């Protein structure tokens, strides 16, 4: 940005946002606005779950077994106190879904953050160091990329189960899951960042930094990293949806979050047992919540990718 630019636009962040392409394409796409609102509402519900949920499904004094398996309020036998019905233990479905989404999102964000840190670090080192370091790291990435992430996550999960003492599975399930998903998703970041670093490191500002004798680590973190973050954000958004699906899938398969503090996937697994006896709401509502959440995040991700990449327009 030149000096004239600064004098012409003194209004600050808001005005710049108003003029940006990103904001323009956002305002002109109703689907994206709906998706953004949905995402916002679900994030807010998840964050403020203890204040928003009508019941606390994990407080045993509030749960009554006599309320078990009540249908949604608009069906015969439903109660207004439990708008989406109750599960087999008398827990309010709406509340368990809000708390479940909280756990699903938490796992999603944590594992994407882990994958991002590993991937960006590997990509920076690989692209900047070059030579055999680059070759070895990228070969590992290639081999891992040829296997589906879900398989790798399952495997890491299995290994963790073997290594950890038997009794601690449930307590550590969250960390195991985050590690498993994080380790199976890093490759995309690494490859993208490496590509950008290969371009950036030839540029003059990097050469200038090298000439002044700054250590490689400082150059990487302070100078190159800020210039390669754009694509990383896009990948992170798309992978958030993937991570949430993967978490739900692992939990559904019974190797994820335990039923004591269920995520959306665990809820679907629990409900699956009642599918044949007609209590469809125990499965379908958590399932619908999961699909809406993933769809909204996916639409946002697609939009961000297209908006930030002028070539695709």
């Amino acid at each position: 940005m030149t000096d004239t630019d600064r004098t012409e636009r003194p209004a600050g962040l808001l005005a710049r946002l108003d003029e940006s392409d990103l904001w323009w394409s956002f305002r002109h796409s109703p689907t994206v606005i709906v998706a953004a609102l949905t995402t916002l509402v679900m994030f807010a519900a998840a964050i403020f779950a203890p204040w928003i949920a009508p019941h606390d499904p994990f407080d045993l004094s509030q749960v009554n077994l006599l309320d078990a398996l009540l249908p949604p309020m608009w069906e015969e036998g439903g109660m207004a106190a439990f708008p989406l019905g109750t599960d087999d233990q008398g827990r309010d479905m709406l509340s368990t879904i809000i708390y479940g989404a909280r756990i699903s999102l938490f796992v999603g964000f944590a594992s994407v953050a882990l994958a991002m840190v590993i991937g960006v670090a590997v990509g920076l080192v690989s692209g900047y160091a070059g030579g055999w370091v680059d070759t070895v790291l990228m070969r590992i990435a290639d081999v891992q990329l040829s296997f589906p992430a879900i398989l790798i996550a399952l495997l890491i999960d299995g290994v963790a189960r073997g290594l950890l003492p038997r009794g601690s599975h449930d307590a550590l399930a969250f960390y195991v899951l985050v590690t498993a998903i994080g380790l199976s998703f890093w490759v995309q970041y690494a490859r993208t960042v490496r590509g950008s670093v290969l371009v950036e490191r030839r540029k003059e500002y990097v050469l200038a930094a090298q000439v002044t004798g700054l250590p490689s680590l400082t150059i990487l973190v302070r100078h190159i990293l800020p210039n390669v973050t754009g694509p990383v954000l896009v990948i992170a958004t798309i992978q958030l949806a993937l991570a949430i699906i993967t978490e739900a899938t692992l939990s559904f398969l019974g190797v994820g979050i335990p039923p004591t503090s269920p995520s959306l996937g665990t809820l679907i697994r629990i409900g699956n047992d009642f599918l044949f006896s007609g209590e469809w709401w125990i499965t379908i509502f958590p399932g619908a919540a999961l699909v809406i959440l993933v769809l909204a995040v996916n639409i946002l991700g697609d939009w961000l990718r297209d908006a930030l990449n002028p070539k695709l327009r």
Partner: protein
Amino acid sequence: MILFILRRLAESVFVMLAVALIAFTLFRFVGDPINNLVGQDTSLEEREQLKEDLGLNDPVIVQFARFVGDAARGDFGYSYQMRLPVKQLIAERFPATMELSMTSALIALFVGIPMGVYTALRRRSLIARSFMTASLMGVSLPTFLIGILLILIFGVQLRWLPTFGRGQVVDLGWWTTGFLTLSGLKALIMPAITLAIFQMTLIVRLVRAEMLEVMRSDYVKFARARGLKPRVINFSIALKNTLVPVITIIGLQVGSIIAFAIITESVFQWPGLGLLFIQAISEVDIPVMAAYLMLISFIFVLINLAVDLLYLVIDPRLRGETA
């Protein structure tokens, strides 16, 4: 060209060795192999003897070599959980997974490619747009939820189709097939569709993107200028060129179909490899996990190799370059 094939072969062997190393590490160091084989009242001397007999006192590199040798012959020892040879368990389950995966791969291809071509050619039509919306839904719908929805509609509400198992199977000695009985075919419908939908959405999007790219190219414009019929341009010229990258991705998709079969098999209690693997994970049955990992990797490597070689056959330009 021979050099290229040799290099790809060497790479494949290297990948398999790397996977074998992971599987071996699992087998040897995660959980104690001796503890899993003997009861609590086995004396320390007997344990030592068993350790010696199994060769667990040899240098690690010798053990690894033996592991690779055994694995090459399909010998992975005994399942901790079921006390049966892993080889036998895998052989029993393999046909179920293969029949399911191949059926869904065919469904995904024969529905996905025409849909992709259509959405590319009639880009602005209502049907094409609804296909694209549906494909975004398909990407956002987890495999297991599709299965549950199908079960709820066709299994529980309408009672048309069975919701679990393989139905009646015919034993051919070395292979069991569900293709030859009515109940076997009926049982296959829902799992195969469940597994196919996700792959199908990917194929639709891929074919559409590639086709749009090709339609913009100069040789298609030239073909138009020559006054060729649209049908000839679309199918003989554009589609043919679209298929080259599509084949690569589809080859890789076959691998992921086998992996995603884990989920489908779990939803429908389909007695295949995936169900075996999930049970092995929750029971920490290391030999089964190791064997599954090796088998799946082997299939993956084989497919990758086949795709690369197929590339040589399809695209003549590649034959000269790499030699």
